[in-house]
């Protein structure tokens, strides 16, 4: 009996520890390779040796060696390295939010940007900036908090809309999201229009999506924060699996759906709020990446969630590298690159690759 059971269990029909390790291990290696590759490109191209020197320098963190560093190494250490890392974590976070929202709303097209959650967060942050609240208040990162509040409000509104009729069709929910997005964006536009021009220009640049990293301590806190929320989401991965069967079935399988849904809403809003407050509105990652990953490795969220996060990270790191090199020395908003590269790839997967490859 058990032998028979293992015949399908090992044939890729279900998730095994072995498969999980293989996929995640492979993606981790790929991520490191992509990050190192991204470090080389920019307004000035840098060779592998300089990248290595700069990384070694950072790892040793020696103060004496600082004087011996050339311009390229300084660009590397102070600008490019933090930016690439932030791109990776923003992408990872957005993809994870996408996966979670898709399972929660049982809608494979859900995305924080499309549903207006990002706009909600952006509105919260814009309001904080309008009233001159700084980025930290008594050591609390206050902008992400506003982003969290705005995102959570938008999310609850969308969820109420989805629940108001027992079964809201997939496309109606998206339509509701688009409209909510439009309303929230109008508020943001209003805020930028009543600001002084020089402040509103900065706000606009941030809104269009920028991955300019803050100082190292702030970056460190951001990375840790994203990592923590990702781990907490991972702990609910099995519940996400059950929720895709529908709420009634999830309940009949022993999932305390009400509590878990609330917790997942809070986690997604926390993640979206923090991401939007540091990088503005970057669309498409949350929808394209999980969808593409799902078509390749299947739907089990225990694998889908971390795999999407890693692929999302790589995707945004590469997209940002393209954004800052293609028109160098000028930069184009990374959101344009994510939409233009992600869209066609998404179409290709949707139309031609319905099978699972791993």
């Amino acid at each position: 009996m058990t032998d028979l059971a293992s015949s399908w269990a090992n044939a890729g029909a279900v998730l095994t520890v072995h498969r999980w390790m293989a996929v995640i291990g492979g993606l981790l290696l790929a991520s490191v390779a992509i990050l190192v590759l991204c470090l080389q490109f920019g307004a000035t191209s840098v060779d592998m040796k300089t990248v290595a020197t700069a990384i070694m320098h950072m790892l040793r963190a020696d103060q004496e060696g600082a004087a011996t560093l050339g311009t390229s190494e300084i660009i590397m250490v102070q600008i490019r390295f933090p930016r690439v890392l932030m791109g990776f974590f923003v992408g990872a976070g957005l993809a994870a939010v996408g996966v979670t929202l898709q399972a929660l709303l049982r809608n494979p097209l859900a995305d924080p940007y499309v549903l207006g959650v990002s706009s909600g967060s952006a509105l919260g942050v814009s309001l904080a900036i309008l009233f001159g609240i700084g980025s930290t208040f008594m050591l609390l990162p206050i902008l992400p908090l506003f982003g969290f509040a705005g995102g959570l409000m938008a999310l609850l509104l969308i969820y109420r809309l989805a629940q108001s009729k027992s079964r809201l069709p997939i496309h109606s929910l998206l339509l509701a999201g688009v409209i909510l997005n439009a309303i929230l964006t109008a508020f943001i536009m209003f805020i930028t229009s009543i600001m002084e021009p020089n402040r509103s220009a900065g706000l606009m640049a941030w809104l269009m999506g920028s991955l300019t990293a803050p100082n190292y301590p702030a970056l460190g806190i951001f990375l840790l924060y994203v990592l923590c929320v990702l781990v907490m989401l991972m702990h609910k991965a099995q519940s996400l699996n059950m929720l895709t069967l529908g709420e009634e079935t999830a309940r009949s399988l022993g999932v305390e759906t009400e509590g878990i849904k609330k917790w997942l809403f809070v986690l997604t809003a926390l993640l979206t709020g923090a991401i939007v407050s540091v990088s503005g509105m970057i669309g498409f990652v949350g929808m394209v990446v999980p969808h593409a990953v799902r078509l390749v490795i299947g739907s089990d969220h225990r694998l889908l969630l971390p795999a999407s996060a890693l692929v999302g990270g790589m995707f945004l790191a590469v997209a940002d590298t393209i954004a800052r090199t293609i028109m160098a020395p000028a930069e184009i908003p990374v959101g344009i690159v994510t939409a233009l590269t992600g869209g066609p790839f998404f179409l290709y997967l949707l139309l031609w690759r319905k099978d699972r490859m791993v």
Partner: protein
Amino acid sequence: MKTNRMETMQSWLSVDVPAIEVEGVSFRYPTTEGRERIWTLDHLSFHVDAGEILGVVGPNGSGKSSLLKVLSGYLPVGEGDVRLGGLSLGTRSQADIARLVAVVPQEYAQVFPFTVAETVLMGRFPHRTARWWSMGIGDETASDLACAHHAMVETDVVSLADRLVSDLSGGERQRVMIARALAQAPKILLLDEPTAFLDLQHQIEICSILRRLKEERGLTVVLVSHDLNLASQYCDRILMLKAGALFRLGTPQEVIGVDALRAVYGCDVLIDRHPESGVPRVTIPSYASTKHIRDHM
């Protein structure tokens, strides 16, 4: 949690306790605007014995599906009490109920590409012991796999194990959903219209599976159906609902009659005996004989 499971086991060992006891249960949905607040379930009382197949019939909106949702703990028991194996639903946790009751819902709309094996294994979720550090990866034990495999053998879906559920036909999908419910190793199986939209062969297939499970596993089955003939053929007893209230409860012979169907469904039908089993057989009247109905329309 452990003690709860022990209690469950003990109560099932005593034969006298009915599998399901429904006593004076009333339920109504929160008011929707412009509609009168009516009782969806109206002072229902009945018992289902262990190892019995109970068919729930009645017209659309008579509360059949709501009754199943109350029994599975999805809808709260408004008034009255529901006891499963002698223990009140209210005192059980959702996970505790899940180890006792499995549900096959009316429609299964999976939008994500899960394989058949993954779907069936989800049935083992209430039995898994979560380890915090593993984050759920590799939580399936050998016994989980064996149990899922057994369920797939019983519903004949082993050959479909690595197929995507969304790619299956209606009959195959329904068998997968029953396999998922069986993997839960329940004592009680609740099914909402398990044969709707299935062709004849698949209807017989599903009903034979249920019958076999009752005989081999002693499974208690409550199934909602619109098909009176199917219900009278495969159910031990039939519960007929009218506007949320119990209209009749008994063997097919006792429940299915011209008068009862006229009172509940508001139409005349022909009833004779099944040539093999002798249970009542319902036939809708010919077009010519319903002239008086059409005259009233």
